[in-house]
Structures are given as structure tokens and as C-alpha cells.
């Protein structure tokens, strides 16, 4: 369905076709395939950039390969947030590229200690998941006071104390101007131009070279009119915010984001081709009830917006449980779907195993493998990990569905030659495969120890049950 599906042949015909290898790959065709798959950049082809005769081809290729959702950046030179730059609406059509930026808010009515607490929270937020660090990305400074002087002071304080990318939030151009005067070198994202202030905001955006958010809550006609007007005004770096309703009206929010992204990716509609903003923070402004229920709602809305194409989210809650599922979800959704689901079966030594080291068995579902090996590595346990062929299916289903049986375990034991590497004959099988213990002992002739149901229990298990002899 994406209109932007580009054929490598078409790209190839515009390349120099000299197979000079300067880009690092064998020939121009391979480079063309890499370009189409977003694995390399046009700028890696020196002749295309340097040789006059390819000038026209270069600009043609540039246009051809540019994403239907433009890429907008903000922040400072050390730390930048990249929004949009997406080619497809559904991840299987290629892959998503720039993970949704998640910003938390601070206000100009917070005390310095409160500001520092929130700044530190965002900076220090870190969850290690299959070897990757999942983090938060930016701070949104909101002017609650609506006083230029106050906003200026707080913007100064925040930018002196962090180099996180910033979003300045005020609908009052005077306040915005004051905030910008305190910002120094970096370029924040401005929030927002509305039907009432667009001219002043456009001037500020042009003067300070900052991207500008277009906001028209729940009114797509005005949103589109504003987008066109600002483009005509000369503001090219725009972010679109159709408004987020966190309860009543949620369907119109989901619809707006879906329609905008559809028009950008599938109809090449230029006025929809900008990064989209979602503001789960509205859960705190709209609903009644306690903080916990607002945080809960905010978390759910954030998740739905991540899946419905938001490129940047502004959130409020500092609860780990609202943010953790969302950074994990974001990581999942932005994983390249071309990555295989399974890893190769076989033997993996971890650390420096010797002949008394334990031997673990796991499945070849990629995720199971990464989680198990990650846990073992983190605990610094020297061992052998036997990856049995479960047809790339997770352990629990593979055991129930008889995809992982004693036969597959015996196969990997035999083929790996692990029996020559250790002097014991004990296999540690996952707790979820406990029901296979008997048949594995019969089939392999090894003794079976049933390990924990989750690999997070491995360190404790080894400490208590594994005796080095």
C-alpha cells in the first residue's frame, strides 16, 4: 500500500554504475539495495557528490529516497531528539526508524529542588532490556505562570542544569520570546502555534531557527490550514499536534493520528507529512480522581499513541510503572521486523567455562535466547548454553506443542560435542520444560536438573544447587 515503495533498479539507474566500491560495498546494485532498505546513505557515494555530471541524479535520488514524513530535530549539538523521518505506516512494510521521543514536563512554578528532581529523574531513567538501555529523551518546560520574566528564569535554570533536548510550552508569544532569550545555543521545539498566535510564533521560529509545533485540538481543518499557512510563511520544520483526549473523545484522537499518517505515507500528502505529537499528559488535566488512576490512564493512552504513529509524547507521571511498559513497548514496536525470530541452534560458551561448568538448555526463539544469555552474562556465570531447535517458538509453547522434546535436546547434546567439554553429565533444563525431565534423561543418558521457570532465578539456583566438583 505505501506509495513510496521504491525499486532498487530505479535507484541503480541513477547511480554512477561504475562499481567503484568507494561506498564500501561490492557494486552499485548492492548499494542501491542498501539505499532502498535504509541501511546506507546516498552521501556514502563520493562520485555522486563530487562529480558535476551526477548533480542532477543526486538531487533526483535525494527526492526519491526522502521520507514521506519529514525528519525534524531539536536539542543541542551533543544531544538531539529526532522525530519522524518515517517511510511507512505499518512496521512490516519496511521498519519504523526514529523511536517515539518521550518528554516529561516541568513548569515555571516549580521550586528549584522540584525542578532538579524531575531533571535528574529523566536523565537517570534507564532500564536494561536484552542488553539495550531504554531511556527517556526530553523535557517540556510549561509556562503555568504566563509571566515572561518567570518563564525566562526557569528556562535559564533548566538549560543551565541539563543538556536534554527541551520543548518550550506557552501559547503566549511574549512568554515564548522571553523563554527563547534564555536558551543560549540550543534549539528547542516550540509549543505551539495556534490559530490565534501563529504569526508571532512563526517569526520566533524563524528568528531562532527552532522547529515549531502546530496545535489545533480536535479540529483537523484548522490544523491543516495552519500547517499550510506556516509552510507558506517559510517555517519548514513543523510538528503536528491534533490534540490528545485521554478519555471521552479518545476515538477522535486515534482517528486523527491514523488519518494524518495514512495521508502522509499512502497518499503522499505533503501537509500531513510531519512528525506527530501526542500528549498523554492531558490525562492529568481532564479526568477527576486520584493521582494513581490518572497515571494509569496516562500510561495506557501513551501506549496506544506509540502504536498509532506518535513521534513525540509529552507525559507527566514520574511513576516507574507508567513509563516502564511504554519504553519497552516502544523498543518492541521500533525493532526492525526484518530481524529473524530465531537464532541458530547449537552450543554457546558464556564467560570462560571449564570442565566443571554447568550446562544449560534453552530454546532458539530469539527473545528467549537473548534474555537467558543476558541473565547469565550479567551474573558472570561461566557455563555452556545449549540452544535447542524449538522452531523459533518460545519455550512454553514449544514444550506444550511438542516442538521441543527430548529428541531436539538429544540432538543438540550430540552435535555440539558438549560431552567432551565437561566431565559431568548434568543438564539444567528450564523450569517450564520440567515435564520433559524423564524423557530427556532416557534419550540423552544425562542426568537432568530442573532449573528456575525464569532465567532471572539462575544466579540463585547456581549458588544453591550447583556444586563444583
Amino acid at each position: 500500500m505505501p506509495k513510496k515503495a521504491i525499486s532498487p533498479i530505479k535507484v541503480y539507474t541513477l547511480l554512477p554504475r561504475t562499481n567503484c566500491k568507494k561506498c564500501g560495498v561490492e557494486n552499485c546494485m548492492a548499494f542501491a539495495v542498501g539505499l532502498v532498505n535504509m541501511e546506507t546513505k546516498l552521501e556514502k557515494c563520493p562520485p555522486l557528490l563530487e562529480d558535476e555530471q551526477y548533480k542532477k541524479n543526486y538531487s533526483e535520488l535525494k527526492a526519491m529516497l526522502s521520507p514521506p514524513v519529514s525528519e525534524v530535530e531539536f536539542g543541542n549539538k551533543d544531544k538531539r531528539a529526532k522525530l519522524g523521518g518515517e517511510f511507512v505506516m505499518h512496521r512490516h512494510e519496511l521498519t519504523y526508524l526514529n523511536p517515539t521521543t518521550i518528554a516529561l514536563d516541568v513548569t515555571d512554578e516549580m521550586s528549584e529542588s522540584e525542578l532538579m528532581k524531575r531533571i535528574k529523574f529523566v536523565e537517570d531513567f534507564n532500564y536494561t532490556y536484552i542488553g539495550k538501555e531504554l531511556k527517556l529523551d526530553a523535557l517540556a518546560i510549561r509556562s503555568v505562570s504566563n509571566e515572561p520574566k518567570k518563564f525566562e528564569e526557569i528556562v535559564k535554570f533548566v538549560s543551565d542544569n541539563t543538556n536534554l533536548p527541551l520543548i518550550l510550552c506557552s501559547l503566549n508569544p511574549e512568554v515564548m520570546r522571553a523563554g527563547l532569550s534564555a536558551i543560549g545555543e540550543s534549539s528547542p521545539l516550540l509549543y505551539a502555534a495556534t490559530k490565534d498566535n501563529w504569526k508571532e510564533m512563526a517569526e520566533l521560529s524563524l528568528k531562532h531557527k527552532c522547529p515549531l509545533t502546530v496545535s489545533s485540538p480536535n479540529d483537523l481543518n484548522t490544523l491543516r490550514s495552519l500547517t499550510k499557512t506556516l509552510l507558506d510563511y517559510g517555517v519548514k520544520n513543523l510538528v503536528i499536534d491534533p490534540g490528545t483526549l485521554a478519555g471521552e473523545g479518545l476515538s477522535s484522537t486515534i482517528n486523527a493520528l491514523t488519518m494524518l499518517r495514512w495521508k502522509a505515507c499512502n497518499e503522499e500528502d505533503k501537509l500531513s507529512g510531519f512528525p506527530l505529537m501526542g500528549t498523554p499528559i492531558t490525562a492529568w488535566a481532564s479526568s477527576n480522581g486520584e493521582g494513581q488512576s490518572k497515571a494509569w490512564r496516562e500510561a495506557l493512552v501513551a501506549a496506544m499513541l506509540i502504536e498509532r504513529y506518535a513521534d513525540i509524547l509529552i507525559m507527566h507521571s514520574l511513576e516507574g510503572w507508567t513509563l516502564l511498559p511504554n519504553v519497552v513497548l516502544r523498543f518492541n514496536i521500533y525493532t526492525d521486523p526484518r530481524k529473524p525470530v530465531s537464532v541458530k541452534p547449537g552450543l554457546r560458551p558464556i564467560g570462560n567455562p571449564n570442565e566443571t561448568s554447568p550446562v544449560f538448555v534453552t530454546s532458539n526463539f530469539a527473545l528467549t535466547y537473548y534474555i537467558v544469555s543476558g541473565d547469565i552474562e550479567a551474573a558472570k556465570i561461566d557455563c555452556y548454553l545449549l540452544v535447542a531447535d524449538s522452531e523459533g517458538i518460545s519455550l512454553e509453547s514449544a514444550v506444550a506443542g511438542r516442538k521441543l522434546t527430548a529428541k531436539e535436546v538429544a540432538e543438540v547434546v550430540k552435535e555440539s560435542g558438549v560431552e567432551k567439554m565437561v566431565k559431568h553429565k548434568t543438564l539444567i533444563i528450564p523450569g517450564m520444560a520440567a515435564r520433559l525431565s524423564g524423557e530427556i534423561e532416557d534419550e540423552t543418558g544425562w542426568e537432568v536438573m530442573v532449573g528456575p521457570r525464569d532465567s532471572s532465578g539462575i544466579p540463585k539456583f547456581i549458588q544453591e544447587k550447583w556444586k563444583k566438583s
Partner: protein
Amino acid sequence: MAKKEDNLVKKLSDSLVGNLSRYEELELEDVTIDVKELALKMLPTPRRVIPTKVKPTELAKVEFSPPKTEWVGKIPEVTLGARVDDGGTRDRSYIIGGETTAAFYTFEGSMVHRPVISMDVFDMKITLPGAVRAHFGDVLEDPPEWAKQCVEKHGADMVNLHLVSTDPYIKDTSPQDSAKLVEEVLQAVRVPLCVGGSGNPAKDVEVFEKVAEAGAGERLLINSLNLDMDIEKASKPLKEHGHVAIAFTQMDLDKARELNRRLYDYVSKDQIVMDTNCAGIGYGLEYGFTIAERARLAALKGDQELQHPLVSGISNAWASREAWLEMEPMWGPKEIRGPIWETITALSMLLVGSDYLMMLHPTSVKTVKEIVDYLLKGGEAREIPDWASAKLGG
């Protein structure tokens, strides 16, 4: 002398003219012109026109028109459960499917049927996360009572009775005993029932045969038929007693099509729903999410072999350790993390088109139903609160 002065003036004015024509503006410093009358005559040179774009002064007026999606396919409607006037004993039945657009594309028309939110019950005590056990602790060995609580206390639309103890490697419960339990649960609750096996393909076929007999006329949902089974043997009792099959495949659309094709030989299209497999956030969500999304989009674009309602085992969310593990205090208590993990997994699968969710935790069920209400309500929304300048608690 006069001639010399004349020459000087001429030279000066010539260079002035020359400079003026080149620079448009000229500033003379430390120059005194001491003459009675100075007349500079020069041809008017046209001002260089710099092509500046005129900045708009008014807001443009452009309309936003919804996209043109051009779906051609339709998901058939499948009825779950049979009321007395339909030959069963249920107090209600549900229709799932019927979609002609992608999930929650309500800008293209309303969703015909609400997704069904069901809850899991197991036929033996199994390892369950503490947050779930806390709600069902006293009924974990009493499946009919457990089912009753799901429906009466927690508002489950349907109950999924999982006959895990039938696995020859677990308890090897006989098909007859399992069929008896199905009858008991059908007595205990009046909602439509889904009955699942242990996942052992050979044993499941035997179990389903007896279950289909025991639940004749009730239009049970049978969980599940797969390619490792003797399809003919597995589907015959469903055809004979009028039940619905979940066609289960593991993240592979070619296999999903193949299984459906094989089922078409024995049962009608409105007796098949698909489970393309799903996993929780942090434990493979992206695979289940994308395979279901691909299946549904392909179906709407006309792939007839994938035109079936989708079923998702949301309870798989609890396999992610973040859902149940005691973690550092900053990540919050597992009693909250677990339900939120399951809820977000459920919402994810709903957004890609799932029609039937199997769930575990009462709070997740309640929340998902609430959100579905919001998602299905069309019409104009209220004013959006001004979050940018609002004082917020928390």
C-alpha cells in the same frame, strides 16, 4: 586652474556615479564638498528585484479530507455460544467479526461488533502470578466456581476453560473426565464457553471429541486446532455438534492460510477464527502484533484465506518478567505493573484487529472494557484541556 578644478569635479562625480550604480548606497566619510552648486545627474538605474516570498497575513482556509482506503474484503461474522432458541442453554451469544475496515477506523464507519473480553480458568492448580492468585486464591482448584467469579464478579464476557491436566506428561486426565468438567462449568455459568486443550496435539484431538459431544448445540469455541493434528479427525466433531474452531499457527501467515484451507474441507467459514499467536510487551509483542496486523490488512485487501476473526491469548503478557517479578522500588509494585502489562498488551492487539481477548487479571479486564467504550464512541469530542499552562497534581 579652473580647468583643473573642473576635471577634479568630473572625476569625483564620475566615480560617484560609478560607485552608486554598483552599490546602490554610498557613504562618504571625511569629505567636504566646497562648491556653490552641485548637480549630480545620472540615469535612474532599476532597483534590483530580490524575489522575496510574500509572507501570508491571513490564515489559509484548507479542508481536511479523510483518506481513501479502498478496502475490498470483509471478515465473516462468527457466532459464539447458543441461546435456548438456537438450540443451546446460554443466556446470551456473541457475534464477532464482520469488519470491512481496519480496527477502530471509526472515521470510515462504526465497528459492527464489540470485541469479546474473556477470562481464563484452568482445570488444575497451575503456576499463576501472585497478582492474579490474590483474586482467585480460594477457587484455583474449583474450576466451576472460578468461572462463576470471572463472570459474576469481574464481568467476563466469556470463560476459557483450559484443560491443561489432560497432557499425558502432566496428569493425563481422560477425555471423559474432562467432558464432565465442561458440563459442570456449563452449569455454573450461562455465558458462552471456550474450551482449550493442553497443547499436546494427539491428546487434544481425543479430548475435543468428547468435549464437543458433551457441549453439543452450545456452539463452544474450541482452542485450538493446528497443523500438527489430524485435521479430519479433529474437525469432524466440531462440524457434527456445531462448534467453532480456533485455528492456531505460530507467527506464520503461510501456515495460517494452509491450516484454514485444510479446515475448509470439513467446517464452514463461519466456524473458524484464527489465532496467529501473541506475546506480551517485552516478550515478543512485536511479532504477535505485526503478524496479526498483516493478517487483518491482507484480509481487508482481499486475501480470502485470512478472512477470519482474530483471537489473542493476552494472558501470555504474564510471561514477561516485568509483569510479575519483584523489582527495584522505582518500577513500582508488581501488583500494579502486572495488570498494566496485561492491559497494554490487550490494547495493542485490539488496535491491530483482535476480536476476542483471553485475559487473566480482573483489573486488566475492567480497564480494557472502559477503553473499548471510549474507542467505539463516535461523535464530537469535548474541548481539550489546556495542558500546556494547567496546574497538574501528581
